[in-house]
């Protein structure tokens, strides 16, 4: 199984998501980029743990999975402007 190639592929496509995060015109676009980067980093962590074959390393992916969307939740909770209607 060519794991190394897959790891490089996900690191490269993470850069693609990062560009959307930087150039996004509105905050919603930036959050879409953050969601994208977070998903690919989760895949990267899982692949790394399976490559090393240590079950303890999967805890990083699990902790990131649980706490990952708290940042998005905080930004959305404190910066929501009600639409004027």
């Amino acid at each position, binding site marked *: 199984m060519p794991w190394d190639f897959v790891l490089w592929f996900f690191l490269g496509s993470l850069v693609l998501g990062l560009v959307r995060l930087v150039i996004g015109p509105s*905050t919603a676009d930036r959050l879409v980029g953050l969601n994208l980067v977070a998903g690919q980093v989760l895949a990267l962590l899982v692949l790394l743990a399976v490559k090393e074959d240590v079950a303890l390393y999967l805890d*990083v992916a699990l902790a*990131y999975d649980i706490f990952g969307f708290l*940042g998005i939740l905080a930004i959305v909770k*404190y910066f929501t402007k009600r639409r004027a209607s």
Partner: protein
Amino acid sequence: MIEASLVLMLLVAILSLAARDLLATIVLLAVFSLLCAVVFYYLHAPDVAITEAAVGAGVSTLILVWAVRRTARGEEG
């Protein structure tokens, strides 16, 4: 591959310093701490990586968002 992650971290840090909108800075710092967790992972320190992922993604973003809300968001205010 660890070199590529470090270069990416440097890039994200520079971009977060150069951003005009403080909300963009917060989002970029979240990505920075994520890549930092990947680098710790490569250095065979999974416990540090767990702490970095939890604190960097959740708590530090929460504190920064709170601070930005209490002060001004842009450069002009």
